[in-house]
């Protein structure tokens, strides 16, 4: 079941990448706002904090999506390595959505995003006992702007130390 899901996610990532690159060639201006977005996924570092050296605390998502990008998977692999080195640390994965959606759906979407991150950590050997998922929906944006860049920073799953 879990493997199935990962396979499905990988496939979706592949298609997403294809779509993104297609977009990029079509209108290159849309590729980034000061090099901080790819498609509509945030790729900058403004809001990112670090759990340890080289271990970013968050991953970002496209609008209405919970698919992990290549960069997100890299981040989560670093987090998994850090968690393996620190077996006493437990984490909360806080899932968030941007403000351009209805409140209740966004709560579910935040949960789905945090779970995508959780599933990935688990495939790298992190026990589900060490991970709690918490959705904030659109209730806790990091950027209060009403523009695509701000929204991209807010569509995120943040790994927070629980102890």
């Amino acid at each position, binding site marked *: 079941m879990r493997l199935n899901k990962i396979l499905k996610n990988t496939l979706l990532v592949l298609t997403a990448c294809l779509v993104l690159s297609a977009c990029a060639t079509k209108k290159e201006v849309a590729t980034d706002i000061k090099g901080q977005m790819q498609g509509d996924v945030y790729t900058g570092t403004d809001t990112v904090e670090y759990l340890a050296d080289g271990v970013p605390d968050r991953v970002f998502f496209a609008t*209405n999506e*919970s698919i992990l990008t290549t960069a997100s998977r890299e981040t989560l692999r670093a987090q998994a390595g850090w968690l393996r080195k620190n077996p006493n640390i437990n984490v909360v994965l806080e899932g968030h959505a941007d*403000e*351009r*959606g*209805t*409140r*209740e*759906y966004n*709560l*579910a*979407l935040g*949960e*789905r995003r945090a*779970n*995508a991150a959780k*599933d990935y950590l688990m495939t790298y050997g992190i026990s589900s006992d060490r991970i709690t*998922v*918490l*959705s904030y929906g659109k*209730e*806790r*944006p*990091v*950027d*209060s*702007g*009403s*523009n695509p860049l*701000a929204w991209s920073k807010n569509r995120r799953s943040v790994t927070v130390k629980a102890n």
Partner: protein
Amino acid sequence: MIKKILILLFLIVPVNVNALIEVDITRGNLNPLPIAVSPLSIDEASRKGFEKILNKENIGSEISNIVENNLRTSGLFNPLDKKAFLQAPDIANLKPRFEDWNLIKAQALITGKVNYVDEKLRVEFRLWDVLAAKEMMALAFTTVPDNWRRVGHIISDKVYERLTGEKGYFDTRIIYVSEEGPKTQRIKKLAIMDQDGANNKFLTLGNELVLTPRFNPASQMVTYLSYFKNMPRVYLLDIETGTQEVVGDFPGMTFAPRFSPDGKKIIMSFAKDGKSDIYTMDLQNRIVEKITNHPSIDTSPSYSPDGKFITFNSDRSGYQQIYVMKNDGSDVKRISFGNGLYGTPVWSPRGDLIAFTKLHKGKFYIGVMRTDGSGERLLTENYYQEAPSWSPNGRVLIFYRETKTNSKGEGFSAKLWSIDLTGYNERQIKTPTDASDPSWSSLLSN
């Protein structure tokens, strides 16, 4: 908090059946009915009596102001300027000089009288058809003086019902979420107020995030989402006693709660492993039932008024759409097929329509469609708005609207708005703080 206060109601004169004035509420009303709301007359002893208890100089005028304000905000009536009234309130209540009221173009007239009797408030009022020179209705109430605002609302409901043929919605309350502070760290509290914004009261302190409060049919209980101890769970709050309890024992987030029309169940979503399904819990025997079972997000459930069907929001097609199913979860049918995303379906208390939020090309709409998805009608468009809630008579929707921030992220606000089912009469409802997630109560008196 909503104490069942005894309101005695007498019919002074049988209601006249051959009414001549009628207000059509099924279309946008561009010519609201001119109505004269004469101040309720009051004798000097009663005036002094109430001034002492209620600290209001003239309670008769205060009550008529409530009636006037309600009728005006309904959009169906045009209360005339009192300065133009020729006849004194006490005389008008005995026998209006219809020519005088006709002269100022009033088609209907409300008169009345307030008395202080045995420490109680006694109010009588009459509704007159000016053109036909006839009394249409006469009623009297006796209640505790503190209830004076409700008397104004009840009079408004009676007048509305007599002239439109449908129940009113003035003697009602709104529960909502009060918002303060920066957008990134909003402090949210449950708050309750009368439908006209009076008697605002906060029900929680703001220590934890609270969202989406909804009334039960008796308007005494509220179900809502609280992040108490950082665990988002559906709670039940008795607003009379202040007692709260978590609903069910779910190993994860429960959200999007609503009561069943009989008030016996709570229907809500439970999120687990990236999926959200719809569950019910019986409040008497605590039995939990799983209603949907799908690897998608199923949320925002709302019962039909007969309790036989449920409308809900799901992205099982790939994107947020609106569905209807039987109350046991069978016979799931998608009903939204227009362009864009659809959310927050909520069944009208009349049963014939479902209100929703729609996102299309970067704009948010509040709209309605029939329960089979046909006849979609968008009532209002804005940068951001969602979460419609029906007035108990199914004629008005209340929702919240958020503003766009500027390039520095400043200028955010969230406010409550209402709009008629006709798409006319859009109004902001004033609240002491920013506000969201409104839910309209049933009529408190019937």
